[in-house]
């Protein structure tokens, strides 16, 4: 289990083993700017400020280039944290809370059965 911290709000959620950044934030009832959720469009890119992620599925070079990876950009629907990470939303985007019961702190890690991407 790793911790995902989102700037600029400093919201923290836990990501389960193999869980993507998008899935962890979604499970905590948080929304931000995303597109296809399947690695095809690149809309959900975040700046990876600290920490490391890995990609368990292939990502098209046309969607996330090597140069972008070097520049610390991650594709949040495919990126799985392997350490605690600090990410920053794109300029003009903000986290929205769509599940008003509890908050991100209630997301303690292991996804229950039925919660997928």
């Amino acid at each position, binding site marked *: 289990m790793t911790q995902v911290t989102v700037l600029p709000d400093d919201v923290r959620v836990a990501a389960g083993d193999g869980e993507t950044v998008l899935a962890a934030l979604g499970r905590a009832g948080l929304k931000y*700017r*995303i*597109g*296809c*959720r*399947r*690695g*095809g*469009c690149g*809309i959900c890119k975040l700046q990876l400020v600290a920490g490391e992620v890995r990609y368990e*599925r*292939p*990502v*098209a*070079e*046309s*969607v996330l280039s090597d140069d972008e990876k070097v520049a610390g950009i991650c594709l949040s629907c495919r990126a799985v944290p392997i350490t605690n990470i600090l990410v920053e939303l794109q300029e003009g985007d903000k986290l929205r809370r769509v599940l008003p019961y509890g908050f991100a702190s209630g997301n303690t890690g292991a996804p229950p059965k039925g919660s*997928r*991407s």
Partner: protein
Amino acid sequence: MSVMRLGFVHIRVTDLEESRNHYTNTLGMDVVHEEPGKLWLKCWDEYDHHSLVLEEGGVGLVKLGYKVESEADLVSYEKRAQQFGTTTGRVSKGENLTVGDGVRITLPSEQNIELFKDIEFTGTKTGSLNPDPWPREQKGIAAHWIDHALVPAEDPGLVEKFFMDVLDFHAAERAITNPSHPEVLGSWLACGESPHDFAVVKGPNAKLHHFAFHLEDWSAILRAGDIMSMDDVSIDFGPTRHGITRGTTIYFFDPSGNRNEVFAGLGYRTFPDFPTVNWTEDQLAKGIFYIQRELNDTFLTVYS
């Protein structure tokens, strides 16, 4: 003589096995041929050899194949495309599996289409002698056929003009800025009597917006939505109705992020004298999602 229909869609996928699962177990297509890194599929109600080619590596559109009636069509459309100023090329028999000689055209919006006349005939699952209305063993959504495709273009008016002037399509519906200054924002174009066989909206060149599967009716759309949830398919929008074409719909994404649609309800027929329906920019959201009358933030921004 004319273009008859969208014959095949050829796309790139990042993971062939996830895509196989999506297009067979969820949508109910059958794999008709495979080679390393490539799959050919068809729907149960289609009688040509295949309607979808999946190629591993990347995402997005490789090409759209449109089937014409005669050899003379190929010659004439090639010449007219050249006169229009588009880049054309010849496609040799066998370059596309079981498909005959063809003509490749790069659209003004940089997507490639290929016109062909011949493709191996393999028949529908229910056959053409005393057939049952549907095959009971088909998996998942059991889509009937691939119906149409939509691509984005920096200049949708030019793409509309190409399809009308060169390929003899007619515009069933059109999105414009306003009637006094009718810049084309989108166009839904038909070669036969269905509301659209091809569509274009304003957006980036060379990309794919979606390709659509025909379902029987509104209740099949709901059932398809249930199956998508069972299979954890990423939904873009729906179920809802389109103002444009009157079709009922769900937009969703394949496992590589290429947008698909299930589409039902041939809302009307379009004869060559059909009066084009126009939607103004201020009412376009209603034209696209008739019930919600509001666009989500992905429909006109997400392309593969």
